[in-house]
């Protein structure tokens, strides 16, 4: 059966997005959900709202109590900015270029200052972090600012001179082709407000690179933003030299500099590319894009009427301003930056028109800094067909799709009836003050299905859950290793220093229950005030070594079992999406229970309190990062290196 080639224009519905109504997330209240959520969605119960409302004031109670004894709040008062040149923390060997003579200042206009918050912000201009609706900041934290200089892209640049970002376009490449990929400043208009942000080739998401499996392309990267950068090819088992990790595989590309990547794509599937320098800023500000690697097998996937890319992201916006980043160090270091404006393909609302009975294949990527999604399609039957690096052994029907940061899944959805299907992120938030769960539904968009029947009709194929024998055979080779003892054990934990007293005391008190997955930021004020200067996220091995001090080697061709335990007794237990560069891995068991339907992954979510066993196919020589893909956690040190030593001693440290 011939696979339908999707109309390239339909992968991103660029035209229609400009006319749709923007939707803002109003977190934490079911009443909000009632106002904007179609009838197909669930509503929070009135009791949840009442309990929450009653608990809100108690948040203030705890805060005031803590504030009374919060002498250490003085520690967070603004300090004199450092006089030495800035250094961009978080990555080895990174330094900011020396300050330019800054002729760009001459171009600064009143309009620029008026339109954007693009200037470095002095300490004494605290910008309150947006709080969930109805929830005030803890009094003991009011007035405090993170101990970092504020940063937003495009300082001193007249936004009017920047191009307006466009939606992603498909770039089809074949073996041997060359692509110019430029990281640049752009303007983006979101919720009626214009911000200076970043984009690859002026597009957000960046260009969709579509290549055949086993192709090798050249990517000429041009860094035209105001920070050093690189490009990491996430999930691709490429030559280590081009993995894009500064201080390990290359030097960071200075602002204005260039680098040439040679990228080989050995595996079919959906991948993505993004910077590996201050991801908390660069990725969050729009530097991300997908790579779709097509298998030569015409029936690699079951037939579908159409393909769609869904790139999930979130932005943190306070009214008409972006919440600044930390220049010297990432802020939101405790939980990561969880946005309050959710986007799909760079826009707050996604729309798709489909025919009745149409099977749509969605390639979904989560590029958020920290948010984990639970995505569903208005009750339309959904089956997952592939993950990060391969298809599943068996297709599987699912009620929704859970994606941690950096994960990808391919799902087929059949829209059986005409009508409107809300694309939603539905989760259960925890209101710590009321001690209750609070359902939250964010509508990311809608699929409108008309009565015209789809042709061809793939109902029967959709109903069949395919077994992918090739995947099973491939995995079978590794089954003898499933039960081997772990070669490496990592415990996930955190250390803190000099956080505001109110934060420490509150975290000590709030110990009754640890959710395995934290879906939203329930305490954004505490989170905002934590930087990587005060928070160190830790991978600790069985020898007690931590992060980059871990000395971890494997022979090329070996199969490495990695056991990861997420310590629930740490100061801030939360889930971590652990990503390994350059290799593929299987999640063979969780908490002692073997996984029944395997898929090759490069990123695995580790819930709180869980022990997850990963089996790594260490076939690709080189020095490969393993890290938490919450951008702020990476910036706070949660990384190490697996040295895969080739026959020629390929693994090396720089």
């Amino acid at each position, binding site marked *: 059966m011939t696979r339908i080639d999707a109309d390239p224009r339909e992968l991103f519905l660029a035209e229609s997005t400009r006319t749709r109504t923007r939707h803002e997330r109003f977190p934490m209240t079911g009443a909000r959900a009632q106002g904007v959520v179609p009838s197909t969605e669930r509503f929070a119960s009135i009791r949840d709202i009442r309990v929450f409302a009653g608990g809100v004031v108690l948040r203030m109670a705890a805060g005031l109590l803590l504030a009374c004894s919060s002498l250490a709040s003085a520690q967070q008062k603004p300090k004199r900015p450092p006089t030495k040149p800035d250094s961009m923390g978080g990555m080895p060997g990174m330094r900011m270029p020396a300050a330019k003579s800054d002729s760009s200042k001459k171009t600064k206009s009143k309009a620029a200052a008026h339109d954007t918050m693009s200037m470095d912000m002095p300490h004494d201009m605290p910008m309150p972090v947006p709080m969930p609706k109805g929830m005030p900041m803890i009094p003991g934290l009011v007035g405090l600012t993170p101990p970092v200089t504020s940063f937003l892209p495009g300082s001193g640049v007249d936004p009017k001179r920047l191009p307006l970002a466009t939606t992603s376009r498909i770039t089809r490449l074949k073996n041997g082709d060359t692509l110019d990929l430029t990281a640049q400043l752009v303007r983006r208009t979101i919720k009626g407000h214009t911000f200076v942000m970043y984009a690859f080739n002026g597009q957000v998401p960046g260009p969709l690179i579509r290549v055949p499996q086993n192709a090798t392309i050249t990517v000429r990267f041009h860094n035209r933003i105001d920070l050093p950068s690189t490009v990491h090819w996430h999930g691709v088992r490429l030559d280590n030299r081009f993995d894009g990790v500064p201080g390990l595989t290359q030097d960071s590309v200075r602002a204005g500099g260039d680098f040439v990547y040679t990228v080989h794509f050995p595996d079919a599937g959906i991948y993505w590319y993004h910077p590996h320098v201050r991801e908390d800023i660069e990725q969050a500000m729009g530097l991300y894009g997908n790579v779709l690697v097509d298998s030569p097998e015409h029936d690699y996937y079951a037939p579908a009427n159409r393909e769609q890319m869904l790139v999930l992201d979130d932005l943190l916006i306070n009214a008409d301003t972006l919440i600044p980043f930390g220049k010297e160090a990432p802020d939101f270091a405790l939980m990561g930056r969880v946005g309050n404006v959710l986007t799909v393909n760079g826009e707050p609302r996604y729309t798709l028109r489909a025919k009745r009975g149409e099977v749509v294949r969605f390639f979904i990527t989560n590029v958020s800094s920290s948010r984990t999604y639970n995505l569903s399609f208005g009750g339309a039957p959904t089956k997952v067909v592939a993950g990060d690096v391969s298809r599943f052994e068996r297709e599987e029907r699912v009620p929704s799709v859970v*994606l941690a940061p950096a994960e990808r899944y391919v799902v087929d959805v059949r829209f059986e009836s005409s009508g409107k299907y809300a694309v939603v992120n539905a989760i259960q938030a925890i209101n710590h003050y009321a001690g209750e769960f609070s359902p939250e539904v964010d509508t990311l968009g809608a699929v409108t299905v008309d009565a015209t029947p789809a042709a061809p009709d793939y109902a029967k194929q959709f109903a069949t859950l395919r077994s992918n024998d090739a995947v099973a055979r491939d995995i079978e080779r590794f089954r003898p290793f499933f039960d081997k003892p772990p070669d490496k054990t990592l415990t996930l934990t955190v250390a803190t220093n000099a956080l505001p007293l109110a934060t420490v005391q509150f975290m000590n008190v709030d*110990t009754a229950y640890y959710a395995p997955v934290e879906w939203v930021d329930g305490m954004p004020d505490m989170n905002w005030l934590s930087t990587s200067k005060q928070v160190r996220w830790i991978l600790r091995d069985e020898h007690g070594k931590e992060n980059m001090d871990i000395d971890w080697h494997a022979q090329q061709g070996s199969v490495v079992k990695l056991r990861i335990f997420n310590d629930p007794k740490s100061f801030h237990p939360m889930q971590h999406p652990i990503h390994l560069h350059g290799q593929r891995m299987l999640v063979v068991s969780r908490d002692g229970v073997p996984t029944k339907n395997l898929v090759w992954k490069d990123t695995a979510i580790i819930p709180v309190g869980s022990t997850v066993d990963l089996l790594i196919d260490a076939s690709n020589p080189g020095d490969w990062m393993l890290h938490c893909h919450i951008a702020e956690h990476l910036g706070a040190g949660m990384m190490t290196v697996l040295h895969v030593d080739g026959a020629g001693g390929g693994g090396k440290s720089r």
Partner: protein
Amino acid sequence: MNLARSAILALAATLLAAASAGPFDIPLFNTPKAPTAQGNARLVFAQSPFGVAVTADGRASYDVQIDASGLPDPGTLGSYTSYVAWAATTDLAHWARLGVVKNGHSVVGHAELNKFLLVVTAEPSETTSVHGGPTVLHGTSPSGWLQSFLSHPLFRGIPP
């Protein structure tokens, strides 16, 4: 102020100690109907291709591993032949059948409530879908220990 802070920490420690050995553990307690019964339960995510099993609206979906001992012959409690585990909402309004429990290790599921009571009852049939028999073991989900800060002694005085 020190007293109140101590009270908060004491309650937090109390709750944490009482809640479970781990974040997914549920200590089970017997009742006068089965004073020799003992048990522990552990929640594990149900099988999911994503590693984290949740419902469409985001509620965690767990398999419940129950290790029980000392359960008497159900027939000694009345006209009962089996033990069945249930997940009940905390207001006891809704009971979801999980599965059959025996002495030893049983795996039942799926529990898909935010907060729930894990209850093992004697029933006249293994396949019964409505609970009606006496409770022999019970526990509270770890999430059931989530407390409002309203409940801290700081805010209502030290009991009693």
